[in-house]
């Protein structure tokens, strides 16, 4: 069996160098996709028959919600890999994923709230999906808080990995139970239309935005991970060399 790739993947040095090469291109791609999607969605996509222009919030709302959720599973997977294979890099990825996920969850809730006002006449409703998302935000906050609360790096890694994993077991349970709860209570004032089959002219920019958010997510994750790598590998020779070379570069400029 050829496991070389696996170990290489686990090497912070390899990750750092590879991302140094790829990140500029990926960032460019993310930027292009996001810019195209936004302009298309905000200016060119046709107006929604019922909601008017407020529906354009969908181009931020849906990608953010989507990645917030995906990000949680990614974080938990990284934590699990760290616990099982004791791979340092994967803890770093986990640590990086938490603030990004929390920010995106907040974004989903915020854009949802400002969408809710014109649509439902209220910034907030206790809808099943929204409630679950709020709980997801709490789960993210929990992981973040645990990471900062521990003074010991190792304990912090392990504790937040376990919490992330416990959270993944819980997310489906939470979604199911909240959904069930909502059908029990179904308030009369609000009716959630089931997703209407969207017109392709509206859907295409959404697709572009989702792709753009994906790329952006990867870029942000890499950037956060790189900082973490530097912080934790500060004593290694390669970081020393890195500093040395950058210092030389600065001196060379002078």
């Amino acid at each position: 069996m050829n496991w070389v790739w696996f170990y290489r993947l686990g090497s912070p040095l390899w990750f750092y160098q590879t991302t140094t090469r790829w990140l500029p291109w990926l960032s460019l791609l993310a930027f292009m996709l996001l810019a195209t999607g936004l302009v298309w969605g905000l200016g060119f996509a046709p107006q929604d028959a019922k909601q008017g222009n407020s529906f354009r919030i969908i181009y931020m709302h849906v990608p953010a919600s989507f990645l917030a959720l995906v990000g949680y599973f990614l974080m938990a997977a990284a934590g699990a890999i760290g616990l099982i294979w004791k791979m340092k890099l994967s803890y770093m990825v986990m640590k990086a994923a938490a603030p990004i996920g929390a920010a995106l969850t907040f974004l989903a809730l915020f854009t949802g709230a400002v969408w809710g006002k014109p649509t439902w006449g209220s910034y907030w409703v206790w809808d099943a999906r929204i409630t679950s998302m709020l709980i997801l935000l709490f789960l993210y906050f929990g992981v973040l808080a645990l990471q900062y609360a521990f003074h010991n790096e190792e304990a912090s890694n392990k504790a937040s990995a376990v919490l992330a994993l416990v959270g993944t077991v819980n997310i489906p349970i939470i979604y199911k139970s909240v959904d069930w709860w909502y059908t029990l209570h179904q308030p009369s004032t609000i009716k959630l239309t089931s997703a209407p089959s969207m017109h392709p002219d509206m859907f295409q920019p959404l697709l572009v935005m989702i792709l753009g958010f994906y790329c952006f997510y990867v870029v942000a994750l890499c950037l956060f991970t790189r900082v973490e790598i530097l912080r934790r590998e500060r004593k290694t020779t390669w970081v020393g060399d890195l500093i040395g070379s950058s210092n030389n570069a600065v001196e060379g400029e002078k």
Partner: protein
Amino acid sequence: MRKYTSDGFYAYLRRDLLQSHRRLGEAASPLIFFVMASTLVPLGITPDPASLAEIASGIIWVFALLATMLSVGGLFAGDYQDGSLEQLLISPQVLVMPVLGKVTAHWLITGLPLTLVSPLLGLMLFLPEAGYLPMTASLALGTACLSLLGAVGAALTVSLQKGGMLLALIVMPLYMPVIIFGAATVQYGIDGLAWTAPLAILGAMLAAAIALCPLAIASVLRLTSIN
């Protein structure tokens, strides 16, 4: 040496019960909180019997949950501070049984009294009659769930310098399904629906929690003790 795994269970159960017996003031605090908080409701919200009747089941469940959460934070704190937790971690026995013993003691001190006293609160908050049985049944199962889940959070935060209440952030999401089905059981009972259905789900959750939580707690205690 404790060669038999069940020994750890009884030893810790007995010790924790004895300790709470010695300081009843502390042990009774979840109960006091539960009763006191519920008496605030008519003062703060509304004294109107009809309105109270509507929210009674929810209020009781919310306060039962909060009372459990607040007390579970200290589950391992005392043992951590005086060094007994370290002794437990370096003892040859399997960690799961002592942990289960401690959680059981916690439920006996917290969840059980809450369950027993809840009809009284139901009376004070004008809970409709059909709600009493589902309420006590759901509280009995639900608080056990809450103790187990809360203990996971307590284990995660035990080695933090008094990080006790970070706990709320960690366990509250885990508690959400429990309160949903707990409150629903009572609501079903009041509405004359088949309240055994949500109760059964609570039971299933409890079974899963009994199987999984002690394992999780044991490994978390081992993992985070490095500091």
